[in-house]
């Protein structure tokens, strides 16, 4: 039976309730009659022979590119860059798709006699990966061969000797990327595409760049005009990256892009019910829901977090394409949309969503309040094409405990941002103008970024800008089940029950609003007409 497409449920009396993620837990909420619940398409079948598909992609590249074998020659410099720990979410079961591709590329490089090979984790301003995360991404064999020799690197966007200025775009945007990559005869980029934002020229132009370069598209103006940043052709973030990509190409830097797409198999068997439509839950699913949700309620948050972060997703590979960046990325987008796109007619007054325990920036860590904001207003709100699911001036209700908890190792600058910046203002424009530079250039944050496992000092600012379009669009944001003090600091309201949240929202959208719920997991993207 072929997988079912996405589905929109119109809530009536017979409706059983809807699963809402709530951080390291989940609950069933009853939406008012007349509400709509958007369900993602069912998981597409995965490729039966991933290794064969990888070899085939390397042999038959798309766009203006020769097969990989003909690009590899003895004596050349080869750099293999790959996406970092922020993808996919949660981390996939071993072997990670990146490790399979990297090995396939290395085998060909070895056959061609290419000895000068360096692997770089394309971190941009993300935190350095831990040993176990790197091992997971590239595989033990590659790690044990390359890391001890200093040939497995993590991109350092603050190493003045390790960066190379490539040029300016017609708009005056500076393009600066890793020197090793820039001076290589070929960059092979290994990407994992979980959402349509990933991949394309963003891989190299962002992943291997520096603050000097990133600030041209990671800013409030660009983000407000990226409608949405999940829609590559209507995203200024992507337009800027594509302009930078053109500069990189003009400079003679050759990129062989390898992009992969995954299906919607986000959770292993024990948590499979999370992805099912609630009215299709069988006795086993209900028993699992009751036992796990009750157990999680009684579990301390740190322990629940550890349990969830140890989950490995059984994602299946739905496609792999290699070759010229643009052509590859168009194929990737096709597959991502095929898996995630749901057609929705019209916007609603209220958009509800449950936020999970994980986002791109808290893998194996705490989802602090700024990351909750970013996940809701940045990522989930932007999961649309054409126009947002909620009308201008509408209300967003997102469910998450939103505790005042931070990870001092991974997110040191977030703590100061929360305490010193958000206590003054939540206006992204003011924050950008007044505070960004000092955090971006703070030597302590730079030191922690370069030598520890800390996100760059400027990263919390980017998280805030990430939600700027939603802030500009929405009339109010209510955090369901959130800590009231934290919600207030973020500039939002907190409600303890869904009915309370709806009552609070009525002040902005009236007493009989239209409501849409974005059901997750798995991820979906709405094409709103």
């Amino acid at each position, binding site marked *: 039976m072929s997988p079912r497409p996405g589905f929109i449920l119109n809530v009536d009396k017979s409706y059983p309730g809807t699963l809402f993620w709530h951080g390291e837990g989940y609950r069933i909420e009853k939406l008012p009659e007349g509400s709509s619940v958007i369900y993602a398409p069912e998981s597409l079948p995965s490729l039966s022979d991933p290794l064969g598909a990888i070899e085939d992609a390397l042999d038959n590249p798309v766009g203006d590119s020769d097969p990989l074998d003909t690009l590899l020659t003895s004596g050349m410099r080869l750099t293999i860059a790959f996406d970092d720990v922020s993808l996919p979410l949660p981390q996939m079961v*071993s072997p990670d798709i990146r490790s399979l591709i990297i090995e396939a590329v290395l085998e060909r490089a*070895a056959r061609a006699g290419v000895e000068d090979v360096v692997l770089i984790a394309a971190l941009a301003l993300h935190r350095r990966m831990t040993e176990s995360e790197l091992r997971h991404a590239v595989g033990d064999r590659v790690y044990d*061969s390359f890391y001890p020799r200093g040939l497995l690197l993590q991109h350092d966007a603050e190493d003045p000797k390790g960066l190379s200025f490539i040029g300016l775009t017609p708009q005056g945007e500076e393009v600066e990327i890793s020197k090793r990559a820039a001076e290589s005869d070929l960059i092979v980029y290994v990407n994992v595409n979980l959402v349509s934002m990933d991949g394309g020229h963003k891989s190299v132009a962002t992943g291997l760049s520096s603050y000097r370069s990133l600030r041209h598209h990671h800013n409030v103006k660009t983000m407000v005009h990226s409608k949405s940043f999940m829609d590559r052709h209507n995203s200024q973030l992507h337009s800027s990256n594509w302009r930078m990509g053109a500069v990189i190409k003009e400079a003679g830097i050759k990129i062989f892009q390898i992009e992969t797409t995954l299906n919607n198999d986000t959770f292993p068997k024990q948590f499979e019910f999370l992805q099912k439509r609630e009215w299709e839950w069988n006795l086993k699913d209900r028993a699992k829901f009751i036992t796990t949700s009750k157990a999680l309620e009684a579990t301390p948050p740190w322990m629940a977090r550890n349990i969830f972060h140890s989950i490995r997703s059984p994602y299946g590979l739905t496609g792999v394409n290699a070759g010229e960046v643009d052509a590859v990325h168009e194929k990737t987008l096709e597959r991502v949309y095929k898996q995630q796109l749901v057609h929705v007619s019209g916007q609603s007054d209220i958009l509800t969503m449950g936020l999970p325990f994980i986002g791109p920036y808290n893998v194996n860590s705490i989802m602090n309040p700024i990351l909750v904001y970013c996940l809701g207003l940045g990522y989930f709100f932007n999961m649309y094409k054409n126009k947002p699911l909620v009308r201008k001036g509408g209300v967003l209700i997102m469910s998450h405990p939103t505790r005042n908890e931070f990870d001092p190792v991974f997110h040191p600058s977030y703590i100061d941002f929360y305490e010193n910046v958000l206590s003054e203002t939540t206006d992204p424009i003011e924050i950008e103008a007044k505070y960004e530079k000092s955090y971006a250039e703070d030597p302590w944050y730079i030191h922690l970024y370069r030598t520890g496992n800390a996100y760059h000092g400027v990263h919390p600012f980017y998280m805030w800008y990430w939600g700027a379009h939603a802030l500009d669009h929405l009339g109010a944001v209510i955090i369901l089940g959130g800590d009231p003090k934290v919600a207030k600091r973020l500039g939002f309201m907190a409600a303890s029950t869904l009915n309370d949240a709806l009552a609070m929202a009525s002040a902005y959208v009236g007493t009989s609003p239209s409501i849409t719920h974005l059901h997750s997991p798995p991820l979906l993207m709405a094409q709103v007409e």
Partner: protein
Amino acid sequence: MAKMRGLLGKITMPFPLGRPTWPANVERTIPKSKLGANYDTEWARRYSVRLVRSLITDYVTKPAINIVASPKVLGTDRLKGIDVPVIFAANHASHLDTPLLLSVLPDDFRHKTAVGAGADYFFDRKYKAVIWSFLLGAIPIERTRVSRRSTDLALEILRDDWNLILFPEGGRTPDGFAREFKGGVAQLALKTGSTIVPVFIGGTYEVLGKNKKGFSPGSTVVNFGRPISPSGSNPRDLTKELQSAVNRLGDEVYSDYWDAALRSGASSTPDLADNGDNSWIAEWNRPRFSDTFEDSKKSRWPRLPFIDKPL
């Protein structure tokens, strides 16, 4: 026992209490031997026997192997998602190889795997045949000649979706160097279309090599390779490919993945069978697994805190 018998003398009982005598004018038909390649191992693959064997493998063999051979297992990621049945083809240096390999096989394979064992050595006595069939799921394989019976049995096992462990060298190495692979594995794979998983086993020669008296506990390694599909090949090429793959896996263990890949790309992978015409220099230079990993040099027992303190 013979001494006892001698003391008691030969006790004979008259028929029908004793055995009947065979009339001299009736031709005596010698019953077909039920041992060696003819031993019927079907009983050892029944569910009940498998269940007991898996308990013994998991709770007796595995802990014992961990104590004696401290195995380091590499390359299991290469086995993810491959279709059963598969033939695991490994180099062979010790009687330890089979229990070691069985105990480190991933769960998907471990309890439905039979082992090809020399019919002349493991199945020449009834008690040996029973023990090895029961403990290892062994099946008799003729090593000295091509036997239709052995081939048919192996084919039948693979067709019943059982995996098979075979040692293409046909026996244990006498000197620590591998020997040339025979073509049986390739022929079997080509006949059944089964995937071959090359496996390199290192360190077992040092722990319990041929002609060694007793165990010398030490570290061992099992490195699983990328599965080889037999389609579109002939037995000779497939055998060569298999031997190269095992050589490369050995190279990966003794150097690292990337160096081994580069050497493989340049067709200069060290041959595990290269004994330098029996020269002592080759023996001197023969890589030993225990020399490779730092952790294998560590004490097998935790150090007591006062040991490191200055006296």
